[in-house]
């Protein structure tokens, strides 16, 4: 088995701040994902990466950057945090057509 570790678990930021979320997986999966989860809006894809150094925009990429410098890690940057923003960011990994596994999430609050 494997595990996906997201850090930090809770992130409190200030309006306009650049914030970085990190994700590590030891499944040796090629593909990694970042999703944003908001109540009533489901899981929206922000970025995904099919291999090291690859980046693909999802439906919600505006306002975010991502980086995949190693196969095992995938980071997400909120380029300018929006006031009163609250969301859960979920990292996931999986092989082609295979089961996708999720991390436990990072809860973001912007004050």
């Amino acid at each position, binding site marked *: 088995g494997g595990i996906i570790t997201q850090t930090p678990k809770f992130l409190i930021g200030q309006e306009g701040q650049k914030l970085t979320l990190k994700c590590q997986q030891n499944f040796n999966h090629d*593909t990694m*994902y970042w*999703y944003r989860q908001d109540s*009533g*809006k*489901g*899981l*929206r*894809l922000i970025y*995904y990466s*099919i291999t090291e150094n690859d980046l*693909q925009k*999802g*439906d919600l990429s505006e306002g975010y950057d991502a980086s995949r410098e190693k196969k095992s890690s995938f980071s997400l940057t909120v380029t300018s945090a929006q006031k009163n923003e609250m969301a859960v960011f*979920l990292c*996931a990994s*999986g092989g*082609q*057509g295979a*089961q*996708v*596994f*999720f*991390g*436990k*999430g990072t809860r973001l609050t912007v004050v």
Partner: protein
Amino acid sequence: GDSVTQTEGLVTLTEGLPVMLNCTYQTIYSNPFLFWYVQHLNESPRLLLKSFTDNKRTEHQGFHATLHKSSSSFHLQKSSAQLSDSALYYCALPYMGYKLTFGTGTSLLVDP
């Protein structure tokens, strides 16, 4: 682009009654495969069912679903709901095996 539609935001029913959660999809891919994920409170989503074959029923943990390409549907069913089935259910569509698109989710609340 590819999309998944889950029409019910919330489904409430009494324990013992049958469950049916709707999922329809749109894709340009001729051989789609579909997933159902389940997310219990304070947990992360995990895979519940997956289907790769048209008109073939797939089952897991008492739930079942059949991919119907003719109607672009992959509805989730269970014959008898349990209290522990209360959770958020997502239908998902992978595009070319990589870009995994989720629906907006259906919250299932099972009352005693």
